[in-house]
């Protein structure tokens, strides 16, 4: 398939799961920037420390859309602590891999989720996610 995407990536790209906005989310993560061509928003509902619902919106390539979709699948029903342990690598593995030059797109999904959890913690406890700040993953990946 195009760009060397796996069938799993194309499946999620064709019919992404959990797309859309959320009314009154308990946390919102907004990451990426137009310069790099990927922008992602993730919204979560949290009840008793469990992520009961999650939605996303993505401006980005096939890999960005597929990783957003897979990430929402993986975190739904998990506790905050469990969700935080899901790395971009786990998302990539669940998608049966990504072409090397698309790996940076998966970092965006991890960041969007962490952003949403951070937002939720700020709202509920007044303290954000410890040691977390939104990073510009493209700077890290490409060093420009």
């Amino acid at each position, binding site marked *: 398939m195009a760009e060397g995407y796996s069938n799993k990536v*194309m499946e999620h790209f064709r019919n992404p799961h959990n*797309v859309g906005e959320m009314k009154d989310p308990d946390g919102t993560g*907004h990451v990426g920037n137009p310069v790099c061509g990927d922008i*992602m928003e993730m919204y979560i509902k949290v009840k008793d420390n469990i992520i009961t619902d999650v939605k*996303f919106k*993505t401006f980005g*390539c096939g890999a960005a*859309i597929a990783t957003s979709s897979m990430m929402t699948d993986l975190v739904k029903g998990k506790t905050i602590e469990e969700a935080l342990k899901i790395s971009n690598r786990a998302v990539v593995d669940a998608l049966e891999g990504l072409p090397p030059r698309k790996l940076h797109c998966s970092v965006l999904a991890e960041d969007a989720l962490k952003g949403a959890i951070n937002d939720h913690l700020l709202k509920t406890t007044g303290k954000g996610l410890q040691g977390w700040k939104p990073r510009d993953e493209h700077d890290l*990946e490409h060093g420009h």
Partner: protein
Amino acid sequence: MKRIYLDHAATTPTHPDVLAAMQPFFSDKFGNPSSIHSFGRETRSAIENARGKVADLLGAKPEEIVFTSGGTEANNFALHGIAYANEEKGSHIITSAIEHHAILQPCKFLESRGFKVTYLPVDKHGSVDPEDVRKAITDKTILVSIMQANNEVGTIEPVEEIAGMVRGTRGEGRNVYFHTDAVQTVGQVEVNVDKLGVDLLSLSGHKFYGPKGVGALFIRKGTRMVPFLRGGEQENNRRASTENVPGIVGLGKACELAKNELDSRIRHLTPLRDKLIKGIMNKIPDVVLNGHPDQRLPKNVDISVKGIEGESMLLNLEMEGVAVSTGSACSSGTTEPSHVLMAIGLSHELAHGSLRFTLGRLTTESDIIYVLDVFPGIVEKLRKMSPTYKKGG
């Protein structure tokens, strides 16, 4: 599964007549054109025959045509060949910001070797201002290289005017050469080296129904050049390497066909192109046409769609059987979107949301109708999942 190929600026299918012309030159007529025996003589004459056809299409003399491995080599040859043959006269080269990388990268290399290069800006339509070229010329200038048409946005540059202006600066020991990269124009619009007034011109076979791996550089008689490939006396000592005989024969045939069919190709493509542009603009809000409104290649439709990234559109079109291309970074494997789209002043978001349809001789009206049928739904679907798209915003 339906398959519609709308990526003719990337490459074209070899014309069946071209293929037929090439066929005997693999196993049957295989001689080395440098050999004196009859095997060599028959391929030598095939090459000279092909050279005549290329020259004929361009309005050049046969001895002014040097065969290369393609457009990239022709461009590298032109830049290096002129730069190193005229070093003692000057070290300044002028080009534009929207050239193909086969021009820009050799320019960067030459800069690292002490040459100075001026990269002229373009306006929002992608046009180079001849006045900017005139102002950039100094006593040190040895070469101006401006493409005849841009591969991405399809803008046809005022090459005739620029070349005329460059010629006007000659005299009193100053001799600025003018090169044009005509890879996107040969076989697509009229290309005549005397009318254009160019000293050097690059072309590539596979962009106009010839085979891959062959191209040519037109070098006007009297132009001071050094070879780019050394190690043999082929091509009148200008390009070493055993000739790619089947490729050269195929290029010759492609040029012959282009000459005969040029008018009908333009008449075929122009209304299809305009139908596609008009259809997209009418059916989809918040789309911009990139490139020049009328100084535009007959095959080219380049757009930016607000709120959506290019590759995601490309993949969706691919799922509907339509093959196109994008200038978005995500597809080219870099972080920066196309230098051409940035040079015409697009925002990063619009540059990442570009899509290029390039039509060809086998494109039909029903292909265009099919695209206009499936494309609006794709845009709507992707805009629904876009965090940046606000209707009318």
